């Protein structure tokens, strides 16, 4: 019934508008078929000025209301730099936005035909053209230089710390597989062929490689504060993208094409919560949990490349801790080797006869 009433109201509204518009046209017919553009221009001039003001007020309100809600400050070393670059660019384009919009709408108001003036024949001015070519060119050169410098810094393999952690993340529909190299710091070899890849060994880990024996899977991404980490990324089935919004990290997972991303977290989860507890918006109570928002804050991992119907659900918690806590956590992890090979006859190197319960282990957290 409500749907019908809404529908009827909309139809009636349209009908009224059409009738009003038709009336305007009939009036024009009385004036020898000419629309009175002088009076229309006058009103539209005022409307455009009003819109200019509404637009600026709306923009200011957007900043006031929405800025505090945004993903908080960067928690990684390069993230601080890219945020700085973002803010610089934002200020520059903000200034250009304000001046050009004012010029556009003010001129449309000031020089509309209701003012009874004559138009000024002024087809070109080469000096002006040069000025407004050169100034943007200089500003852009600076932005390009800063951006390229930062970009090459982020992706420079020679600048990496030798003591970095290495973690492997593999995306598949609709889950993440996070593999840690264990105590030896080295990953067991993976072989992608029909011998090794099976429903119980989706990654194709070569269990004969001793380095694989202490590798373990985690359902949460544990990182250490101030310890650089190299994420080795790969996909099983379709494209995914490894997105850590708080660390300004994003890199696609491409089946058959390994990718990586190197970064350094700079704040533990607890430190970020502490920081946010001073922010007014984060002090407000979240109606869903009944707690202040900062208390339930957590770093998260998301998928940022459309990968199918549950693309939106690929969530994992990310936890950044101090080295000591990390070591404690590390000690508690069980390597996946023992359960994985338990059922395979020692002579049988292929892993394809394993039982389905291992799959459950590999996918824990789902």
């Amino acid at each position, binding site marked *: 019934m409500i749907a019908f009433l809404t529908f009827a109201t909309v139809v009636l509204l349209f009908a009224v*508008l*059409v009738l009003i*518009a038709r009336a*305007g*046209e009939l009036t024009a017919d009385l004036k020898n078929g000419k*629309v009175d553009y002088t009076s229309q221009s006058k009103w*539209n001039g005022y*409307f455009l000025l009003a819109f200019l003001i509404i637009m600026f007020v709306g*923009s200011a309100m957007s900043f006031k209301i929405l800025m505090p809600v*945004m993903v908080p400050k960067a928690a990684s070393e390069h993230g601080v730099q*890219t945020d700085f*670059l973002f803010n610089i*660019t934002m200020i520059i*384009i903000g200034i250009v936005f304000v001046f*050009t*919009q004012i010029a*556009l*709408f003010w*001129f449309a108001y000031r*020089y*509309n035909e209701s003012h009874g003036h004559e*138009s*000024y*024949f*002024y*087809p*070109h*001015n080469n000096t*002006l*053209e040069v000025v*407004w070519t050169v100034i943007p060119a200089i500003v*852009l050169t600076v*932005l*390009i230089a800063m*951006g*390229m410098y930062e*970009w*090459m810094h*982020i*992706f*420079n393999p020679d600048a990496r710390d030798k003591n970095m952690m290495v973690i492997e993340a593999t995306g598949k529909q609709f889950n993440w597989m996070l593999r840690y190299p264990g105590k030896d710091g080295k990953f067991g070899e993976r072989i992608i062929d029909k011998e090794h*890849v*099976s429903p119980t060994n989706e990654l*194709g880990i070569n269990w004969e490689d001793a380095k694989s024996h202490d590798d373990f899977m985690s359902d949460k991404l544990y990182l250490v504060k101030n310890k650089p980490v190299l994420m080795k990324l790969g996909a*099983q*089935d*379709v494209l995914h*993208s490894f997105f850590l919004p708080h660390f300004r990290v*994003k*890199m696609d997972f*491409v*089946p*058959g094409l390994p990718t990586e991303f190197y970064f350094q977290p700079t704040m533990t989860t607890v430190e970020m919560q502490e920081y946010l507890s001073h922010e007014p918006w984060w002090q407000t109570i979240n109606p869903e949990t009944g707690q202040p*928002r900062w208390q339930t804050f957590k770093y*998260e991992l998301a998928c940022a490349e459309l990968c199918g*119907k549950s*693309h*939106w*659900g690929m969530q994992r918690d990310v936890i950044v801790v101090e080295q000591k806590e990390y070591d404690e956590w590390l000690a508690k992890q069980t390597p996946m080797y023992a359960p994985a090979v338990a059922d395979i006859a020692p002579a049988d190197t292929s892993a394809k006869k394993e039982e389905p319960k291992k*799959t459950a282990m590999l996918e824990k957290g789902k």
Partner: protein
Amino acid sequence: METAHAHATDHHAHVHGHEEHHHEETFLTKYVFSQDHKMISKQFLITGIFWGIVGGLLSVLFRLQLGWPNETFPFLETFLGKWAEGGKISQEFYYALVTMHGTILVFFVLTGGLSGTFANLLIPYQVGSRDMASPFMNMLSYWFFLGASVVMFFSFFIQTGPASGGWTAYPPINGLRDTAINLGSGLGFDLWILGMTLFIVSALLGGLNYIATVLNMRTKGMNMFRLPLTIWALMFTAVIGVLSFPALLAGCVLLEFDRLLDTSFYLNNIVINGNLLGYKGGSPVLFQHLFWFLGHPEVYIIILPAMGLVSEVLATQSRKPIFGYKAMIFSILAILVLSFIVWAHHMFVTGLNPNLGAIFTLFTLLIAIPSAIKVFNWIGTVWKGKVRLSTPALFAIGFVSMFITGGLTGIILGNSAIDIQLHDTMFVVAHFHIVMGVSAFFGMFAGVYHWFPRLYGKYMNETLGQIHFYITLVGAYAIFFPMHFMTGLPRRYYSYANFETFNNFNFLAEFISIAAIIVFFGQLLFVINFFYSIFKGRKVEAETTVDGYGYANPWGTTTMEWTAPIDRLHGNWPGDIPSVHRWPYDYSVNGREFIPQTEPLKPGEVPHE
């Protein structure tokens, strides 16, 4: 030039003879299988409007889900059946909606509908030609477009639904013909490829024709630097299309090989549920290169015609020459060249070689320079003009405002280091909707309101047009301005409920959805106005009558389209095609409000160039 003139005269004689002997046209040759550029223009426009409504409606449906993720809408089940069981849009259908929304608006409305309409209408009228270089190819161009439309529309009604792997058609999700991986990657995506193939054929037939017509069929005296900016923009658009669409076609054909013949152009080491499939050696990134080799020029295919229309409308309605005519031409040329070497800025985080990322940052940000020149020139055109704030002028001003807002955020996104965070988030959605979606629509509306009298001999209703303008301007900003603040939120999410980080913006999503629904209904005002005015609109009254043909110049424009009679004749001019003596922007000069291009120079008068 001599040859062109001789040809034009020759052509004219032929058409004249033609009209005397077979004046009778059947319904079929006049309205359906028409080879007349004006009728083909109308066909493109009305098909485009149809697609505009469909594409907009799809966005309303997915905005319902995004704005109210926890609500159910029982009426949806009535209309959509299994796609919205219990009144909630299914995940599969949600992704089909966003995929088809993108496909339809980018290709079928803003490429086919925009270029198809205005290149067909304006090129022959404004260069002074009786029709396109090949009217038959032109007819085929529309019929391939309609064929593409039928195939795309049909794909909504099959068992597994339309394509749902994103309008970018990335493999492997679209490269594996397996509905278990993605429901829309079955028959739905085959139809998508078929539809796009037909569409590309249409775009190429049309584009070649537009280029040939502009280069070869100009009337006497119409040298290149006397062409209105609309024609420059439409010709450069066609050049971009002809050079880039084939890359997409090649990409799509290889993709279909992967799907149907199990080749491995884009697939390598795919593991589905622990089973290694037999694909070896392909690269999904290769498809992205091919796709964006069209995909990026495509955004200029969309925006250049709008820029051309707006330049013309602003000059005419401001009663003032476009500021920096040649700077405008060279900046479009610069955009054309640069548009081919920026495509990989869509791929900064795909594992591309970082050196490549740096180079593409450079070229991408360079494109801001010609764009800035154009913006300053438009503002310069309005400055000290005598602006008639009619509906087309309002939309042209709205276009400039939108283009500034959307263009500026491109400077942020084009910088690869910043793009790491922003890539595939709502910030990108906000950016490209403003700069190419809404802007191009504003340009298109400016064009439709401005040239409707030329198309139909009637005016569109001003009052409805202005209401439509304000709803669209305010509404579009309300939708897309606040969306920039969702910087960290990934796009193409069915719901943000799984994430603590993204769940804070629900109030904004609801606000945006309400604005989007209002704007959608606001567009229906345009549709009503359009069809109402075709039949009942105020007629264009003849100002002069020569040989029984009425002539008028409703906006007082200098360009050639109104030197033809109000009635749309086959062949456009009943007698000789007028020749051109001056540049197209003699407004408010020599004590005259405007001097048509066809008016000879006075003794002693120095031409503008």
